[in-house]
């Protein structure tokens, strides 16, 4: 399986990346993508800046391990993970995950699995800055529950 994992502090263009990903495919009939966008409404009213911090090296290795697990579990032709760090404003793309497989079920489940990993286990720390100042965010219980779906099955 081909894989492409990138963490960047620069804005990226999800559709440009997806076009390149699709052009790279030779066998797949199914391509699933997830794009995460900075939402305008935060917990304490409007968010002006969302900031993501990572641990260079260790964060990438954790994502690479999750991609390996996905490839062991589903027959993927290729997987792409791009994750933004640093300061972002509403509507900015934060994360892009794309998976390609012969059939759609594998592509859907692998993308879902990778997003659950990124949301609850990858080494990212998020803060939101709004009218009330900066606030660090922790995962929602929902995120832990989503990730736990893959643990024993």
């Amino acid at each position: 399986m081909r894989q492409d994992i990138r963490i960047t502090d620069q804005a990226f263009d999800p559709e440009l990346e997806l076009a390149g990903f699709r052009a790279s495919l030779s066998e797949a009939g199914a391509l699933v993508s997830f794009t995460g966008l900075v939402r305008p409404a935060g917990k304490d009213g409007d968010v002006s800046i969302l900031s993501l911090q990572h641990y260079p090296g260790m964060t990438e290795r954790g994502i690479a391990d999750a991609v390996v697990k996905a490839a062991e579990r589903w027959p993927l032709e290729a997987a792409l993970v791009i994750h933004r760090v640093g300061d972002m404003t509403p509507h900015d793309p934060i994360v892009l995950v794309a998976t390609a497989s012969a059939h759609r079920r594998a592509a859907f489940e692998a993308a879902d699995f990778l997003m659950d990993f990124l949301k609850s286990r990858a080494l990212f720390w998020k803060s939101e800055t709004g009218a009330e100042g900066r606030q660090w965010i922790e995962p929602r219980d929902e995120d832990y529950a989503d990730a736990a779906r893959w643990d024993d099955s």
Partner: protein
Amino acid sequence: MAQLLFFGRLGDLAGGTERALGLSEPHTIADLIGILGACDDLLGSALAEPRVRYAINGAIVDADALVEDEDELAFLPPVSGG
């Protein structure tokens, strides 16, 4: 010098994401938290919270792991994903 890294809200408490600490001999992480806590109660108790994980040179370890001079010790609070 050991490099200490404080992620997420721990960086706010530590007054920065990095701190260098000269270690003439190896110390456990628990001991280092005690030393840091002696100067700064709030930081000490935040670092000792059960949900905070520790990594030495990029590998997750327990609080009784030994940190040597030249090691990189990271304090990892709960992550908050993409």
